[in-house]
């Protein structure tokens, strides 16, 4: 789960990472009130989960109330690369002497947290890493030992930060690591991490990705989910407990098991089609879950045909067939369905479908055959 900038900063602040003071606002009135409280100059920042807000005009300095109002009006409701701005963050302006970069990522390959620091902050760090690899210092941390003072010093000295901020920067990194671990983040990124004119360090931006699987331990974080930014169909799927990703094509897909569904998308593409979604009905799906999944798939108006690709292990093909029959009964779909049932109770499942004689439902015996058929039907 990705947090908005200000949610990330509030999370940082809970762990003692210094951040500029600020307030969120969803209306121009709230924004101006917040700006008055914070004082001028202040910064009006669009809260959307996408980079390049500054270039898109989503970050503006307001030197007085008049500007705070103008900027808030302009930014609230603005579209930034497909993301509508529903919220702004009003923040005290910072007097910036230097811009650094710091991040901690959950490094799957090394199986350790990876801490990175650079003095070349405020720009695209992937570019820095490419053009000047030495400018980005990388250090893995043994999670059982934790982040030690020597890690902080080594990062600071090797990155070549100003001598007078080695200590405060080290303290900031220690707290950032603490936030990463305690909040069970997959990523915490600060770009830029600023040194102010009075030689303080602070996180001027915050990018935080939390582990969805850990949210049961962090109810406060779970409530930060930005439902407004979420696709309606994905939201509907999530509420039904389905593993769903919306895609651009017109072939609705339902399968069981993430790998098989991914493979199904690929095979559909090879057959010349394009999937409208990823939907993993999961292991041991019961009829109701299947019915519910069909509803989600068909809620996408782009869908012109649907492919069921089931290889039953725990999932029983007869349950899938029952779910599909129930869905036809309830929803009465108008698009063609191609169904491939293999594995546990496949014979029973196919027989149920044959008996039901659903309109415009085609059964296929192989995954490849089913993919070709559905692409043909989707048009």
């Amino acid at each position, binding site marked *: 789960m990705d947090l908005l900038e200000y949610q990330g900063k509030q999370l940082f602040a809970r762990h003692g990472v210094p951040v500029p003071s600020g307030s969120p606002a969803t209306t121009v009135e709230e924004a101006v009130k917040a700006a008055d409280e914070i004082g001028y100059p202040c910064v009006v920042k669009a809260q959307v989960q996408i980079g390049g807000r500054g270039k898109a005009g989503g970050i503006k300095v307001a030197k007085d109330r008049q500007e705070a109002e103008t900027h808030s009006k302009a930014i609230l409701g603005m579209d930034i690369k497909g993301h509508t701005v529903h919220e702004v963050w009003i923040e005290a302006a910072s007097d910036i002497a230097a811009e650094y970069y710091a991040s901690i990522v*959950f490094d*799957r*390959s090394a*199986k*350790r*947290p990876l801490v990175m620091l650079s003095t070349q902050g405020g720009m695209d760090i*992937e570019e820095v890493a490419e053009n000047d690899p030495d400018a980005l210092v990388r250090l893995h941390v*043994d*999670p*059982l030992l934790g982040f030690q003072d020597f890690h902080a010093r080594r990062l600071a000295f090797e990155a070549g930060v100003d001598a007078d901020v080695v200590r405060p920067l080290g303290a900031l990194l220690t707290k950032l690591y603490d936030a990463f*671990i305690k909040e*069970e983040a*997959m990523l915490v990124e600060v770009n830029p991490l600023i040194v102010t004119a009075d030689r303080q360090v602070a996180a001027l931006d915050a990018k935080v990705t939390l*582990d*969805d*699987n*850990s949210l*049961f*331990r962090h109810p406060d974080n779970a409530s930060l989910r930005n439902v407004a930014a979420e696709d309606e169909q994905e939201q509907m799927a999530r509420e039904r407990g389905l*593993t769903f*990703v919306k*895609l651009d094509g017109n072939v609705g897909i339902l*399968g*069981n*098991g*993430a*790998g*098989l*569904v*991914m*493979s199904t*998308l*690929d*095979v*559909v*593409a*090879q057959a010349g089609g*394009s*999937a409208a979604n*990823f939907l*993993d009905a999961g*292991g*041991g799906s019961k009829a109701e879950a299947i019915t519910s999944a069909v509803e989600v798939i068909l809620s996408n108006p782009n869908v012109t045909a649907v492919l069921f690709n089931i*290889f*039953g*292990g*725990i*999932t029983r093909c007869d349950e899938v067939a029952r779910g599909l029959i129930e869905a036809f009964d309830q929803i009465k779909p108008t698009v063609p369905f191609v169904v491939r049932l*293999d*594995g*546990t109770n496949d014979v029973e499942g196919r027989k149920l479908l044959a008996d039901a004689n659903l309109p415009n439902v085609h059964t296929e015996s*192989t*995954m*490849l055959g089913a993919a070709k058929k559905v692409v043909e039907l989707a048009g």
Partner: protein
Amino acid sequence: MAILVNNDTKLCVSGITGREGTFHTLNNKNYGTNVVSGVTPGKGGQDVEGIPVFNTFHDAVEKTGANTAMIFVPPRFAADSILEAEDAGISLIIAITEGIPAHDELRVYNHLATNPNVRLVGPNCPGILSPGKANVGIIPASFFSEGNVGVVSRSGTLTYQIGNELAQAGFGNSSIVGIGGDPVPGSSFIDIIAEFEADPETELIVMAGEIGGSAEEEAAEFINANVTKPVVAYIAGFTAPPGKTMGHAGAIVSGSAGTAKAKQEALEANGVRVGRTPTEVAQIAAEIAGSLKTA
């Protein structure tokens, strides 16, 4: 032979008294797996159709000689159960549980790494089947027969799909190992491929990878340097958009890292043939097996 689970397996199931736990435990037992005990805190002294239940893994190991653990408890209890199994001296831990927090997995992985006598397979995996010998997990055994193809996969149903296609092409399996779809699997492709390389029964290795991480790329280099047996690979997720988690917590293309294309290229650059569909994997396997027989 087969790898990891076999006739010497003495299985203890954590979460044996849960609905799913009981179902699959009995399923494994019916297949012929030697299920010696189960663990459910507070239910020590009970039994599940004759399988004794203990409060702790330590009790179960001491009293039933369990050497293999299957973890079937809900995600919030799974890391603790894995650590308990390790502490009790279990040497192979197979974690089926899906949805374990990533930081729990990180902690478990790094702690287990300090003990050379334990191997974790999973979590979020379908388990391990050695046809004709033992089945630990949820792999539907009826599709698979004994043979010489070792299969290792990040995905359950994809394994069945490929296994089924192999079976239709006339192949049986030495062992089928699901390493799971999570960001920090206890065992990597490399770990399992090394086991297959050392297993005399295995003549051909099939690996089924997917987007996310770099385990396939690392395996490619390992195979090139260390594996004498032919390896055929499949990668799922060529059409997955970046930044989206495709079902498995570990299946996500981050920026330009972890794409199916990069994995395919790494494998091919290291001499591993990659099938474009599960069917093609079976076809390539058949071709290689044919040449093995002629040779």
